[in-house]
Protein backbone atom coordinates (compact mmCIF):
# COMPACT_ATOMS: atom_id res chain seq x y z
CA UNK A 1 0.00 0.00 0.00
CA UNK A 2 1.34 3.45 -0.91
CA UNK A 3 2.11 5.90 1.89
CA UNK A 4 -0.79 8.35 1.33
CA UNK A 5 -3.20 5.43 1.51
CA UNK A 6 -1.53 4.14 4.66
CA UNK A 7 -1.96 7.61 6.16
CA UNK A 8 -5.64 7.67 5.16
CA UNK A 9 -6.11 4.20 6.66
CA UNK A 10 -4.53 5.48 9.86
CA UNK A 11 -6.94 8.43 9.94
CA UNK A 12 -9.91 6.14 9.36
CA UNK A 13 -8.91 3.61 12.01
CA UNK A 14 -8.11 6.44 14.43
CA UNK A 15 -11.68 7.68 14.00
CA UNK A 16 -12.91 4.11 14.47
CA UNK A 17 -10.84 3.74 17.65
CA UNK A 18 -12.18 6.99 19.09
CA UNK A 19 -15.79 6.00 18.36
CA UNK A 20 -15.13 2.56 19.82
CA UNK A 21 -13.77 4.09 23.02
CA UNK A 22 -16.80 6.37 23.27
CA UNK A 23 -19.16 3.42 22.97
CA UNK A 24 -17.02 1.30 25.30
CA UNK A 25 -17.05 4.01 27.96
CA UNK A 26 -20.85 4.17 27.80
CA UNK A 27 -21.05 0.39 28.26
CA UNK A 28 -18.37 0.16 30.95
CA UNK A 29 -19.76 3.03 33.03
CA UNK A 30 -23.18 1.42 33.02
CA UNK A 31 -21.63 -1.98 33.82
CA UNK A 32 -19.65 -0.45 36.66
CA UNK A 33 -22.73 1.19 38.14
CA UNK A 34 -24.76 -2.00 37.84
CA UNK A 35 -22.00 -4.20 39.29
CA UNK A 36 -21.43 -1.80 42.19
CA UNK A 37 -25.15 -1.68 42.79
CA UNK A 38 -25.33 -5.49 42.98
CA UNK A 39 -22.38 -5.64 45.36
CA UNK A 40 -23.92 -2.99 47.60
CA UNK A 41 -27.42 -4.52 47.37
CA UNK A 42 -28.91 -1.65 45.35
CA UNK A 43 -30.42 -1.68 41.86
CA UNK A 44 -28.38 1.10 40.24
CA UNK A 45 -29.73 3.45 37.53
CA UNK A 46 -33.25 2.35 36.53
CA UNK A 47 -35.10 5.33 35.07
CA UNK A 48 -33.54 6.20 31.69
CA UNK A 49 -34.53 3.45 29.28
CA UNK A 50 -35.24 -0.18 30.23
CA UNK A 51 -33.25 -0.99 33.40
CA UNK A 52 -31.43 2.33 33.04
CA UNK A 53 -29.63 1.16 29.88
CA UNK A 54 -29.64 4.66 28.36
CA UNK A 55 -28.34 6.38 31.49
CA UNK A 56 -24.78 6.87 30.24
CA UNK A 57 -26.01 8.12 26.85
CA UNK A 58 -28.01 10.78 28.68
CA UNK A 59 -24.95 11.56 30.81
CA UNK A 60 -22.82 12.02 27.71
CA UNK A 61 -25.29 14.49 26.20
CA UNK A 62 -25.31 16.34 29.50
CA UNK A 63 -21.52 16.46 29.64
CA UNK A 64 -20.96 17.93 26.16
CA UNK A 65 -23.63 20.56 26.87
CA UNK A 66 -22.13 21.69 30.18
CA UNK A 67 -20.37 25.01 30.61
CA UNK A 68 -16.60 24.88 30.23
CA UNK A 69 -15.32 26.55 33.41
CA UNK A 70 -11.67 27.44 33.80
CA UNK A 71 -10.20 28.94 37.00
CA UNK A 72 -9.13 32.55 36.45
CA UNK A 73 -5.54 31.97 37.51
CA UNK A 74 -5.09 28.68 35.68
CA UNK A 75 -2.48 28.42 32.93
CA UNK A 76 -4.72 28.57 29.84
CA UNK A 77 -2.58 26.53 27.42
CA UNK A 78 -1.52 23.82 29.87
CA UNK A 79 -5.07 23.58 31.24
CA UNK A 80 -6.38 22.81 27.74
CA UNK A 81 -3.53 20.46 26.88
CA UNK A 82 -3.80 18.32 30.03
CA UNK A 83 -6.97 16.31 29.25
CA UNK A 84 -5.81 15.70 25.67
CA UNK A 85 -2.46 14.36 26.82
CA UNK A 86 -4.27 11.97 29.15
CA UNK A 87 -6.97 10.79 26.75
CA UNK A 88 -5.06 10.53 23.47
CA UNK A 89 -2.34 8.03 24.58
CA UNK A 90 -4.95 5.78 26.19
CA UNK A 91 -6.82 5.56 22.88
CA UNK A 92 -3.63 5.28 20.81
CA UNK A 93 -2.65 2.14 22.72
CA UNK A 94 -5.65 0.33 21.20
CA UNK A 95 -3.95 0.38 17.78
CA UNK A 96 -2.00 -2.80 18.54
CA UNK A 97 -4.70 -4.87 20.31
CA UNK A 98 -5.24 -8.01 18.18
CA UNK A 99 -9.00 -8.56 18.20
CA UNK A 100 -8.69 -12.04 16.77
CA UNK A 101 -6.19 -13.06 14.09
CA UNK A 102 -6.81 -10.66 11.17
CA UNK A 103 -8.58 -8.00 13.24
CA UNK A 104 -5.71 -5.84 14.42
CA UNK A 105 -5.50 -2.20 13.47
CA UNK A 106 -1.75 -2.35 13.00
CA UNK A 107 0.53 -5.31 13.71
CA UNK A 108 3.63 -3.31 14.71
CA UNK A 109 6.81 -5.34 15.05
CA UNK A 110 7.32 -3.53 18.38
CA UNK A 111 3.66 -3.75 19.41
CA UNK A 112 4.23 -4.86 23.01
CA UNK A 113 6.73 -2.08 23.65
CA UNK A 114 4.39 0.41 21.94
CA UNK A 115 1.60 -0.62 24.28
CA UNK A 116 3.77 0.07 27.33
CA UNK A 117 5.43 3.24 25.99
CA UNK A 118 2.53 5.20 24.51
CA UNK A 119 0.30 5.28 27.61
CA UNK A 120 3.45 6.39 29.44
CA UNK A 121 2.86 9.86 27.96
CA UNK A 122 -0.22 10.06 30.18
CA UNK A 123 1.99 10.96 33.13
CA UNK A 124 2.87 14.28 31.45
CA UNK A 125 -0.83 15.05 31.03
CA UNK A 126 -1.61 14.24 34.67
CA UNK A 127 1.19 16.45 35.93
CA UNK A 128 0.28 19.25 33.53
CA UNK A 129 -3.44 19.15 34.38
CA UNK A 130 -2.70 19.19 38.09
CA UNK A 131 -0.20 22.01 37.86
CA UNK A 132 -2.14 24.18 35.41
CA UNK A 133 -5.34 24.22 37.47
CA UNK A 134 -3.79 26.50 40.13
CA UNK A 135 -5.54 24.51 42.81
CA UNK A 136 -3.98 22.79 45.82
CA UNK A 137 -5.98 19.61 45.45
CA UNK A 138 -5.16 19.35 41.76
CA UNK A 139 -1.48 20.02 42.34
CA UNK A 140 -1.14 17.32 45.01
CA UNK A 141 -3.26 14.92 42.98
CA UNK A 142 -1.12 15.45 39.89
CA UNK A 143 2.10 14.85 41.83
CA UNK A 144 0.77 11.75 43.53
CA UNK A 145 -0.62 10.18 40.40
CA UNK A 146 2.55 10.77 38.40
CA UNK A 147 4.67 9.29 41.21
CA UNK A 148 2.36 6.28 41.38
CA UNK A 149 2.28 5.91 37.62
CA UNK A 150 6.05 5.79 37.16
CA UNK A 151 6.54 3.54 40.20
CA UNK A 152 4.18 0.83 39.01
CA UNK A 153 5.31 1.11 35.40
CA UNK A 154 8.58 -0.68 36.19
CA UNK A 155 7.33 -3.93 37.76
CA UNK A 156 4.62 -3.96 35.11
CA UNK A 157 7.11 -3.66 32.25
CA UNK A 158 9.36 -6.27 33.86
CA UNK A 159 6.40 -8.66 34.01
CA UNK A 160 5.69 -8.08 30.32
CA UNK A 161 9.36 -8.65 29.42
CA UNK A 162 9.00 -12.27 30.58
CA UNK A 163 6.21 -12.81 28.05
CA UNK A 164 8.41 -11.37 25.29
CA UNK A 165 11.22 -13.72 26.34
CA UNK A 166 9.00 -16.77 25.96
CA UNK A 167 7.26 -15.63 22.79
CA UNK A 168 10.48 -14.50 21.12
CA UNK A 169 8.74 -11.54 19.51
CA UNK A 170 7.50 -8.05 20.31
CA UNK A 171 4.54 -8.29 17.94
CA UNK A 172 1.21 -8.73 19.73
CA UNK A 173 -0.03 -11.07 16.97
CA UNK A 174 3.03 -13.31 17.40
CA UNK A 175 2.57 -13.35 21.17
CA UNK A 176 -0.96 -14.73 20.72
CA UNK A 177 0.28 -17.30 18.20
CA UNK A 178 3.09 -18.41 20.50
CA UNK A 179 0.48 -19.34 23.10
CA UNK A 180 -0.98 -21.93 20.74
CA UNK A 181 -1.28 -24.75 23.24
CA UNK A 182 -0.54 -23.30 26.67
CA UNK A 183 -1.57 -19.76 27.67
CA UNK A 184 1.21 -17.94 29.48
CA UNK A 185 -0.83 -17.57 32.65
CA UNK A 186 -0.03 -21.24 33.32
CA UNK A 187 3.68 -20.92 32.50
CA UNK A 188 4.18 -17.52 34.13
CA UNK A 189 1.58 -17.21 36.90
CA UNK A 190 3.75 -14.76 38.84
CA UNK A 191 4.06 -12.47 35.81
CA UNK A 192 0.31 -12.44 35.41
CA UNK A 193 -0.14 -11.65 39.09
CA UNK A 194 2.29 -8.72 38.92
CA UNK A 195 0.78 -7.46 35.66
CA UNK A 196 -2.78 -7.62 37.01
CA UNK A 197 -2.07 -5.77 40.25
CA UNK A 198 0.22 -3.12 38.77
CA UNK A 199 -2.25 -2.50 35.94
CA UNK A 200 -4.84 -1.52 38.53
CA UNK A 201 -2.35 1.08 39.74
CA UNK A 202 -1.60 2.26 36.21
CA UNK A 203 -5.24 3.04 35.53
CA UNK A 204 -5.82 4.56 39.01
CA UNK A 205 -8.32 1.98 40.15
CA UNK A 206 -9.09 1.02 43.74
CA UNK A 207 -7.10 0.10 45.85
CA UNK A 208 -4.66 2.41 44.08
CA UNK A 209 -6.88 5.43 43.54
CA UNK A 210 -5.12 7.81 45.94
CA UNK A 211 -4.57 10.42 43.19
CA UNK A 212 -8.28 11.04 43.24
CA UNK A 213 -9.01 9.99 46.80
CA UNK A 214 -12.34 11.76 47.31
CA UNK A 215 -12.05 11.98 51.07
CA UNK A 216 -8.76 13.88 51.02
CA UNK A 217 -8.17 15.36 47.55
CA UNK A 218 -11.75 15.97 46.29
CA UNK A 219 -11.02 14.70 42.75
CA UNK A 220 -7.25 15.05 42.48
CA UNK A 221 -5.85 16.37 39.22
CA UNK A 222 -9.25 16.85 37.58
CA UNK A 223 -10.87 18.82 40.42
CA UNK A 224 -11.10 22.00 38.32
CA UNK A 225 -12.32 20.38 35.10
CA UNK A 226 -15.93 20.36 33.99
CA UNK A 227 -18.03 19.36 31.02
CA UNK A 228 -16.33 17.84 28.02
CA UNK A 229 -12.80 18.32 29.33
CA UNK A 230 -13.70 16.33 32.42
CA UNK A 231 -15.34 13.75 30.15
CA UNK A 232 -11.97 13.30 28.42
CA UNK A 233 -10.42 12.21 31.73
CA UNK A 234 -13.27 9.82 32.21
CA UNK A 235 -12.90 8.49 28.69
CA UNK A 236 -9.19 7.96 29.34
CA UNK A 237 -9.88 6.06 32.54
CA UNK A 238 -12.18 3.57 30.87
CA UNK A 239 -10.11 3.34 27.70
CA UNK A 240 -7.14 2.56 29.95
CA UNK A 241 -9.09 -0.04 31.89
CA UNK A 242 -10.21 -1.72 28.68
CA UNK A 243 -6.76 -1.58 27.08
CA UNK A 244 -5.02 -2.96 30.18
CA UNK A 245 -7.56 -5.80 30.44
CA UNK A 246 -7.40 -6.56 26.72
CA UNK A 247 -3.61 -6.71 26.95
CA UNK A 248 -3.82 -8.95 29.98
CA UNK A 249 -5.97 -11.26 27.85
CA UNK A 250 -3.56 -11.04 24.90
CA UNK A 251 -0.33 -11.51 26.86
CA UNK A 252 -1.41 -14.13 29.37
CA UNK A 253 -4.77 -15.66 28.48
CA UNK A 254 -4.11 -16.63 24.86
CA UNK A 255 -5.84 -13.61 23.27
CA UNK A 256 -8.55 -14.63 20.83
CA UNK A 257 -7.80 -18.35 20.85
CA UNK A 258 -10.55 -20.64 22.07
CA UNK A 259 -12.92 -23.33 20.78
CA UNK A 260 -16.10 -22.81 18.70
CA UNK A 261 -16.62 -19.06 19.03
CA UNK A 262 -14.82 -16.59 16.71
CA UNK A 263 -11.58 -15.07 18.11
CA UNK A 264 -12.97 -11.58 18.61
CA UNK A 265 -15.72 -12.97 20.86
CA UNK A 266 -13.17 -14.92 22.90
CA UNK A 267 -10.97 -11.87 23.33
CA UNK A 268 -13.92 -9.74 24.45
CA UNK A 269 -15.04 -12.47 26.88
CA UNK A 270 -11.58 -12.71 28.45
CA UNK A 271 -11.26 -8.91 28.55
CA UNK A 272 -14.71 -8.64 30.09
CA UNK A 273 -13.78 -11.13 32.78
CA UNK A 274 -10.70 -9.09 33.73
CA UNK A 275 -12.71 -5.85 33.71
CA UNK A 276 -15.29 -7.46 35.96
CA UNK A 277 -12.63 -8.55 38.46
CA UNK A 278 -11.31 -4.99 38.65
CA UNK A 279 -14.83 -3.70 39.34
CA UNK A 280 -15.28 -6.38 41.97
CA UNK A 281 -12.05 -5.28 43.64
CA UNK A 282 -13.09 -1.63 43.44
CA UNK A 283 -16.18 -2.17 45.54
CA UNK A 284 -14.62 -4.63 47.97
CA UNK A 285 -11.26 -3.23 49.08
CA UNK A 286 -10.35 0.00 50.89
CA UNK A 287 -7.79 2.42 49.48
CA UNK A 288 -4.05 2.39 50.27
CA UNK A 289 -2.32 5.33 51.92
CA UNK A 290 0.13 7.28 49.74
CA UNK A 291 3.26 6.03 51.55
CA UNK A 292 2.02 2.42 51.64
CA UNK A 293 1.44 2.62 47.93
CA UNK A 294 5.00 3.70 47.16
CA UNK A 295 6.45 1.12 49.53
CA UNK A 296 4.43 -1.61 47.89
CA UNK A 297 5.71 -0.62 44.45
CA UNK A 298 9.41 -0.32 45.29
CA UNK A 299 9.93 -2.76 48.13
CA UNK A 300 7.52 -5.54 47.19
CA UNK A 301 6.69 -5.49 43.50
CA UNK A 302 10.04 -4.42 42.09
CA UNK A 303 12.09 -7.13 43.91
CA UNK A 304 9.34 -9.63 43.10
CA UNK A 305 9.52 -8.67 39.43
CA UNK A 306 13.31 -9.11 39.43
CA UNK A 307 13.00 -12.57 40.98
CA UNK A 308 10.32 -13.32 38.44
CA UNK A 309 12.80 -12.55 35.65
CA UNK A 310 14.99 -15.40 36.89
CA UNK A 311 11.99 -17.72 37.21
CA UNK A 312 10.93 -16.84 33.66
CA UNK A 313 14.44 -17.48 32.32
CA UNK A 314 14.34 -20.98 33.85
CA UNK A 315 10.85 -21.59 32.45
CA UNK A 316 12.08 -20.43 29.04
CA UNK A 317 14.99 -22.93 29.12
CA UNK A 318 12.67 -25.69 30.29
CA UNK A 319 10.16 -25.07 27.50
CA UNK A 320 12.72 -24.59 24.72
Amino acid at each position, binding site marked *: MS*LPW*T*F*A*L*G*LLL*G*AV*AFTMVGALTAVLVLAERKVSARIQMRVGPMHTGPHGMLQTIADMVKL*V*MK*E*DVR*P*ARADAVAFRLGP*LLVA*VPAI*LSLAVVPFGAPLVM*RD*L*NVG*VLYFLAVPGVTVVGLLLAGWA*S*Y*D*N*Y*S*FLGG*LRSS*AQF*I*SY*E*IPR*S*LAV*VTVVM*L*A*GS*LSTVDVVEAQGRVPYVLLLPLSFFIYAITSLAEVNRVPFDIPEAESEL*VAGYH*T*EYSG*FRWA*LFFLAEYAGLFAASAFGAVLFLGGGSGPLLPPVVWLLLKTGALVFVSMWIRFTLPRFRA*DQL*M*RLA*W*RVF*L*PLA*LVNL*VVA*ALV*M*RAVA
Partner: protein
Amino acid sequence: MSGTYLSDVVFLLGFALAVVVIPVVTLLVFGLLRPHNPEALKAEAYESGMPQASIPRRPFHMAYYNFALVFIVFEVETLLLFAVAPVLKDAGWLGLGEVAAFVALVALSLAYAWRKGALVWR
Protein backbone atom coordinates in the same frame (compact mmCIF):
# COMPACT_ATOMS: atom_id res chain seq x y z
CA MET B 1 12.19 -4.02 6.83
CA SER B 2 12.74 -0.23 6.71
CA GLY B 3 9.80 0.03 4.30
CA THR B 4 7.40 -1.48 6.84
CA TYR B 5 8.90 0.75 9.51
CA LEU B 6 8.19 3.88 7.47
CA SER B 7 4.63 2.84 6.67
CA ASP B 8 4.04 1.96 10.35
CA VAL B 9 5.11 5.46 11.34
CA VAL B 10 2.94 7.05 8.63
CA PHE B 11 -0.01 4.92 9.76
CA LEU B 12 0.44 5.96 13.39
CA LEU B 13 0.72 9.64 12.40
CA GLY B 14 -2.67 9.38 10.69
CA PHE B 15 -4.09 7.43 13.64
CA ALA B 16 -2.85 9.98 16.17
CA LEU B 17 -4.07 12.90 14.06
CA ALA B 18 -7.62 11.48 14.00
CA VAL B 19 -7.58 10.78 17.74
CA VAL B 20 -6.41 14.35 18.47
CA VAL B 21 -8.66 16.15 15.98
CA ILE B 22 -11.96 14.46 16.93
CA PRO B 23 -12.11 15.64 20.58
CA VAL B 24 -10.86 19.13 19.63
CA VAL B 25 -13.55 19.49 16.96
CA THR B 26 -16.21 18.12 19.32
CA LEU B 27 -15.17 20.68 21.91
CA LEU B 28 -15.34 23.53 19.37
CA VAL B 29 -18.69 22.46 17.89
CA PHE B 30 -20.41 22.08 21.24
CA GLY B 31 -18.82 25.38 22.27
CA LEU B 32 -21.46 27.00 20.04
CA LEU B 33 -24.28 25.19 21.84
CA ARG B 34 -23.34 25.11 25.51
CA PRO B 35 -23.98 28.00 27.94
CA HIS B 36 -21.24 30.47 28.75
CA ASN B 37 -21.84 32.63 31.83
CA PRO B 38 -18.49 33.63 33.31
CA GLU B 39 -18.58 34.88 36.88
CA ALA B 40 -15.79 35.93 39.21
CA LEU B 41 -16.79 33.45 41.91
CA LYS B 42 -17.09 30.59 39.45
CA ALA B 43 -13.54 31.19 38.26
CA GLU B 44 -12.11 30.79 41.77
CA ALA B 45 -10.13 27.62 42.47
CA TYR B 46 -12.12 25.06 44.46
CA GLU B 47 -10.98 24.67 48.04
CA SER B 48 -13.99 23.03 49.64
CA GLY B 49 -15.87 26.33 49.72
CA MET B 50 -13.16 28.37 51.47
CA PRO B 51 -11.10 31.10 49.80
CA GLN B 52 -7.80 29.64 48.57
CA ALA B 53 -5.57 29.37 51.65
CA SER B 54 -2.16 28.91 50.01
CA ILE B 55 -0.61 29.33 46.60
CA PRO B 56 -0.30 26.02 44.71
CA ARG B 57 2.98 27.11 43.05
CA ARG B 58 5.20 25.92 45.85
CA PRO B 59 8.04 23.50 46.57
CA PHE B 60 6.90 19.91 46.90
CA HIS B 61 7.98 16.87 48.85
CA MET B 62 11.62 15.81 48.41
CA ALA B 63 10.63 12.12 48.26
CA TYR B 64 9.23 12.61 44.74
CA TYR B 65 12.72 13.48 43.57
CA ASN B 66 14.23 10.30 45.03
CA PHE B 67 11.64 8.12 43.39
CA ALA B 68 12.10 9.90 40.07
CA LEU B 69 15.85 9.19 40.18
CA VAL B 70 15.41 5.49 40.96
CA PHE B 71 12.73 5.35 38.30
CA ILE B 72 15.13 6.48 35.59
CA VAL B 73 17.65 3.75 36.51
CA PHE B 74 15.06 1.00 36.27
CA GLU B 75 13.21 2.37 33.28
CA VAL B 76 16.40 2.33 31.26
CA GLU B 77 17.15 -1.20 32.49
CA THR B 78 13.70 -2.34 31.41
CA LEU B 79 14.12 -0.76 27.98
CA LEU B 80 17.43 -2.55 27.46
CA LEU B 81 15.79 -5.82 28.52
CA PHE B 82 13.11 -5.30 25.88
CA ALA B 83 15.88 -5.02 23.30
CA VAL B 84 17.37 -8.42 24.17
CA ALA B 85 14.25 -10.29 25.34
CA PRO B 86 13.00 -11.47 21.89
CA VAL B 87 16.30 -13.18 21.03
CA LEU B 88 17.08 -14.55 24.49
CA LYS B 89 15.54 -17.92 23.66
CA ASP B 90 18.27 -18.67 21.09
CA ALA B 91 21.08 -17.01 23.02
CA GLY B 92 22.17 -20.12 24.95
CA TRP B 93 23.41 -20.23 28.52
CA LEU B 94 26.21 -17.73 27.83
CA GLY B 95 23.83 -15.04 26.54
CA LEU B 96 21.45 -15.71 29.40
CA GLY B 97 24.33 -15.39 31.86
CA GLU B 98 25.33 -12.03 30.40
CA VAL B 99 21.81 -10.65 30.75
CA ALA B 100 21.56 -12.12 34.25
CA ALA B 101 24.79 -10.34 35.22
CA PHE B 102 23.32 -7.06 33.95
CA VAL B 103 20.10 -7.57 35.91
CA ALA B 104 22.07 -8.52 39.02
CA LEU B 105 24.14 -5.32 38.77
CA VAL B 106 21.02 -3.16 38.56
CA ALA B 107 19.44 -5.14 41.39
CA LEU B 108 22.50 -4.19 43.43
CA SER B 109 21.63 -0.53 42.82
CA LEU B 110 18.15 -1.24 44.16
CA ALA B 111 19.71 -2.70 47.30
CA TYR B 112 21.86 0.41 47.61
CA ALA B 113 18.90 2.77 47.24
CA TRP B 114 16.99 0.66 49.76
CA ARG B 115 19.85 0.74 52.26
CA LYS B 116 20.23 4.52 51.85
CA GLY B 117 16.54 4.94 52.66
CA ALA B 118 15.55 6.36 49.29
CA LEU B 119 12.59 3.97 49.05
CA VAL B 120 10.69 5.15 52.10
CA TRP B 121 8.28 8.04 52.15
CA ARG B 122 9.39 10.40 54.88
